[in-house]
């Protein structure tokens, strides 16, 4: 028997609409109305300015470690903007701009990074999962949400975010495999920012693209210029329409770059060159989108000041919140408060009142001599 070709050549497309100078390929223009273009740019700018502010807040010790988004605004907003409020958004840990688009108040995000439990609490009507710190574990959850939607015949789709490093984890592959087999409405959005802390993409995978990994699971994958908000929007809109029509999941690879640190605990000068960063700064998603909007006369004067004012007001509201109440640590361990946790909660409350945190009254020795049963028998 001869060797035969079972599959024709696979094809992975790359999509770019706005180039680094902000020139539009009009044939590929997703045709957004001016108001939507302005709204997108404002959200990108807010994401950038908040990011810069948050780095300063962290350096001042006012919030804890977090993962800045600088450079990835287009990837996040071009994709999240195509969702309906009733759809599900499943973040990893670097989707600040996308979360704000979905309605997270800025001060709530700040509270999260300052260690307040309520900072991670989505509003009751908000269809967002909380920030996920473990890498790629949220992807099977996204498939579960999509399975539930299919189960209940809800007309919703799920968009899940992750980075290039996450594509090496088993959960990424298991999630794509389940999504492919079950044909559920999920859009997987990979923000390929080139670096998983200090590990560059070429050490993460030998695949030419991340998009092509979808093909192994029988779903379409597309690579887009992740610094081009219109390309991300166009690809996301197509993928969401496919999912909504019952035609299954898609993997979108947004080729972008983390211009800043991995987290505020990281120093990228140790592992990558200033030249590389400068090259990507030239392709900054905000600069090119601003240039395009300016040419279309859609760039509002004073936008930056307005955005900064919004951030400052949110920071003030955040700062007005007191320190976290230690007792809340017991409140959401279980859906109900079990007796042993209730006892620990009460012991801690008593300890806080008496200035001895964690004192457990019930273990205070009662008889002076241990080891001698007190004549109960």
């Amino acid at each position, binding site marked *: 028997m001869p060797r035969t070709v079972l599959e024709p050549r696979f094809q992975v497309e790359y999509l770019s609409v706005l180039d680094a100078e902000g020139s539009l390929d009009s044939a590929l223009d997703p045709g957004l109305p001016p108001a939507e273009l302005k709204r997108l740019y404002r959200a990108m700018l807010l994401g950038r300015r908040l990011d810069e502010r948050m780095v300063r807040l962290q350096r001042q010790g006012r919030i804890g470690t977090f993962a800045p988004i600088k450079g990835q605004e287009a990837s996040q907003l071009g994709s999240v903007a195509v969702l309906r409020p009733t759809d599900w958004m499943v973040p990893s840990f670097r989707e600040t701009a996308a979360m704000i688009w979905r309605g997270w108040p800025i001060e709530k995000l700040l509270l999260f990074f300052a260690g307040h439990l309520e900072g991670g*609490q989505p509003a009751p009507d908000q269809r967002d*999962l909380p920030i996920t710190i473990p890498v790629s574990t949220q992807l099977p959850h996204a498939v579960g949400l999509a399975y539930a939607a299919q189960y209940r015949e809800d007309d919703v789709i799920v968009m899940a975010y992750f980075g290039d490093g996450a594509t090496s984890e088993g959960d990424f592959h298991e999630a794509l495999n389940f999504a492919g087999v079950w044909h559920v409405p999920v859009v997987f959005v990979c923000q390929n920012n080139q670096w998983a802390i200090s590990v560059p993409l070429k050490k993460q995978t030998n695949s030419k693209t991340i998009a092509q990994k979808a093909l192994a699971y029988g779903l379409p994958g597309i690579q887009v210029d992740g610094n081009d908000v219109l390309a991300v929007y166009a690809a996301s809109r197509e993928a969401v329409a496919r999912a909504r029509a019952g035609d299954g999941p898609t993997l979108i690879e947004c080729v972008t770059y983390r211009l800043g640190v991995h987290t505020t605990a990281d120093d990228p000068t140790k592992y990558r060159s200033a030249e590389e960063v400068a090259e990507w700064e030239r392709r900054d998603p905000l600069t090119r989108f601003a240039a395009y909007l300016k040419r279309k006369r859609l760039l509002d004067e004073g936008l930056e000041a307005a955005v900064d004012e919004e951030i400052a007001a949110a920071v003030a509201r955040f700062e007005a919140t007191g320190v976290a109440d230690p007792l809340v640590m017991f409140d959401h361990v279980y859906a109900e408060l079990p007796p042993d946790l209730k006892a620990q909660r009460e012991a801690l409350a008593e300890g806080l009142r008496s200035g001895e945190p964690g004192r457990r009254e019930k273990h205070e020795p009662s008889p002076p001599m241990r080891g001698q049963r007190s004549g109960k*028998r």
Partner: protein
Amino acid sequence: MAVMTYREALNLALREELTRDPNVFVIGEEVGLYEGAYKVTQGLLKEFGPKRIVDTPIAESGFTGVGIGAAMVGLRPVVEMMTFNFALLALDQIVNSAAKLHYMSGGQYNVPLVIRGPGGPAHQLAAQHSQSMEVYFYHVPGLKVVRPSTPMDAKGLLKAAIRDDNPVIFIESETLYNVKGEVPEDPDFVIPLGQAVVRREGTDVTVVAYMGMMYRAMEAAEELAKDGISVEIVDPRSLQPLDTATIIGSVRKTHRAVVVEAGAGFAGMGSEIATEITEEAFDDLDAPVLRVTGAQAPMPYARNLERAKTPTKEKIADAIRRVCYANGSR
């Protein structure tokens, strides 16, 4: 009451809950067409269809994660692990997601998920398929852990687990699937999680044991009764939450305690229960609490080695005699 096997009791619990609540579905490897590796899901695919009895690819982390996602929006997945040893592949999903998402979402999302399947020593399943897996889970805040020893408990506790709003680890045993016992047929019969049961009343010593070890302790108790030693046996049934009140209450009555567990003893359930007893009832004790545990070695494959590793009726009886100072060493 009807007499049925432990397997049939589990099957009945699933069938009743699938009928009662359209949000309940079963997911795992071979649970549909094949009706489960141990036939616990027998007949369910035919009765409830492939949307609710879902065969999956072989990917424990994947289907556990899918279950978590579906649970967060109010479905009640029952995830089957073909054996609980396979749950190690899903450990991150269970520990970092199932147990934490209620907390991480500030209480916004519940994870009403049951993960069930057999675990613990069985008949020559060897090193990688005989582990007492409960130890990996009861340490984790946010999880509940159940080990049902009888057909009645299997039914009542599985139904309670499915109705619970938290993730519940429900570990059965290959050695118990064919055990027969009386089971209430009332579809509203549930056993609340966190309630121990006194399997046998006695006055001289409290033995805490569950699953196969509970049956061995019962045999040891029968034998010791002939020597005039009256053994009380407490079966915790759920390890998290643990009904320490019943255990302590029994120890206050008998003044002696032996804890039996099938797995290796180091930092095991026996250590926890012995500590609870010494913290709460030290002054009631007439002897140190003893543990009877499996040897600190992987489970051997050879039958005679398997027997040597695992607590036997004789080892349990010996420990009981020792805490009663009835072994000649007094």
